[in-house]
């Protein structure tokens, strides 16, 4: 064996495989087809993933905006999944500006959007009802004349107006409580039933009926209605704790 033989073999291998092949065009077509398939797969993936991602992002944004419970309940109402009086399946549509403008403030004179805090000196009812909550009792005061776009027939509209006046204009919680309950009986799935339930709970707090108030607030604090009044209900429950 000499170095020459290895060189000869190496040279033979080089000449045997020159790099040209009859299959070169076929391989080129294979490469281009593979590239095309890869692009198609990638395109299809984006077509599938993008809408899902967009939907997810929109749903997350919507859920965090606090409107999710209203949507869920509206959908449930449409499909006839409404529950009993204690579990209203229909909610007011989009909260009105007045609802969103709820803030903690002392009791205003004629038509306050915000409920006063429960302080014995301010609230005559609270004087006989001992709970000394530190949190503000914020009731929901929706617009009395809902926007025409959301004008679904509400059988208890008159009752709702009555309860609203008693609660917000007169501050008469002893009368507002049965009025809210009348409304809820008449329209358990009414457009304002969720607000009515919350306002009823506020009346119970005002009237010092702590046990009833607690059970009325628990569904809100427990997230049964999503983020709707969850923080306020939790704060009220904390204030009712012995």
């Amino acid at each position, binding site marked *: 064996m000499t170095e020459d033989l290895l060189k000869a*073999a190496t040279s033979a291998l080089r000449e045997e495989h020159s790099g040209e*092949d009859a299959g070169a065009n076929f391989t080129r077509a294979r490469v281009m087809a593979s590239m095309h398939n890869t692009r198609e797969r990638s395109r299809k993936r984006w077509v599938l993933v993008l809408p899902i991602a967009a939907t997810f992002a929109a749903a997350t944004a919507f859920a965090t905006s606090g409107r999710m419970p209203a949507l869920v309940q509206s959908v449930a109402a449409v499909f006839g999944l409404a529950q009993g009086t204690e579990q209203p399946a229909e909610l007011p549509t989009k909260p009105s500006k007045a609802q969103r403008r709820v803030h903690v403030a002392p009791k205003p004179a004629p038509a306050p959007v915000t409920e006063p805090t429960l302080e014995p000196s301010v609230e005559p009812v609270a004087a006989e009802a001992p709970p000394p909550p530190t949190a503000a009792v914020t009731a929901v005061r929706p617009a009395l004349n809902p926007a025409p776009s959301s004008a679904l027939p509400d059988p208890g509209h008159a009752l709702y107006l009555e309860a609203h006046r008693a609660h917000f204009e007169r501050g008469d919680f002893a009368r507002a409580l049965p009025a809210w309950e009348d409304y809820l009986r008449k329209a358990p799935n009414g457009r304002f039933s969720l607000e009515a339930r919350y306002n009823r709970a506020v009346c119970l707090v005002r009237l010092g009926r702590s046990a009833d108030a607690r059970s009325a607030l628990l569904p809100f604090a427990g997230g049964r209605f999503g983020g709707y009044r969850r923080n306020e209900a939790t704060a009220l429950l904390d204030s009712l704790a012995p």
Partner: protein
Amino acid sequence: MGYSVTYLVLAPSALQAPAVEEDESLVERLRRGEPTAVGEAYDHHHAAVRAFAQRLVGEAATAEDLVHEVFVALPRASRNFRGESSLRTFLISIAVHHAHHHVRSATRRRAAFSRLEREPSAEVSADPEAIARRKELAQALTRALDTLPIDQRVAFVLCEVEERSSRDVAEIVGVPEGTVRTRLFHAKRKLREELEREGFR
């Protein structure tokens, strides 16, 4: 399995690397994912890549699979191309990285067919004896290459068969030049032993 190697005389341009500027613009288009860029890269460099693939794996069909794999991987791999070498050298380095399982499967197939009689060559030539001898030597060397570790095999094919400098090979394989030379030394020693064992003197 008969190897249907077609002998063609290559036009000088077929193995000539395109200009550096041409490479750069092509790589830029590959990075942008332009569909025609891969076809263009194939047209410019397929012969060089195929020659290396055939010499390395010693089997035309498997070499075609390797060539296909190299060009399909090119758009993604081109993101790592820094322009320090030519696109052709870069393609060879992609082939080296994709060659391992192709070499293994080709080696297994050759071992399985080694006991079968070789098909007679259909070539007609003025000097059939010389051609037969060349083919025999090439096949013997391919069988001997099958006994080498893949690193030594790659070093031998690139340095000796493709006649590249050890510096080029070091760049392609991504190891120091000294390592390339060591691998080449061991490869040559083992190949001589193998060829002797097969009865070549």
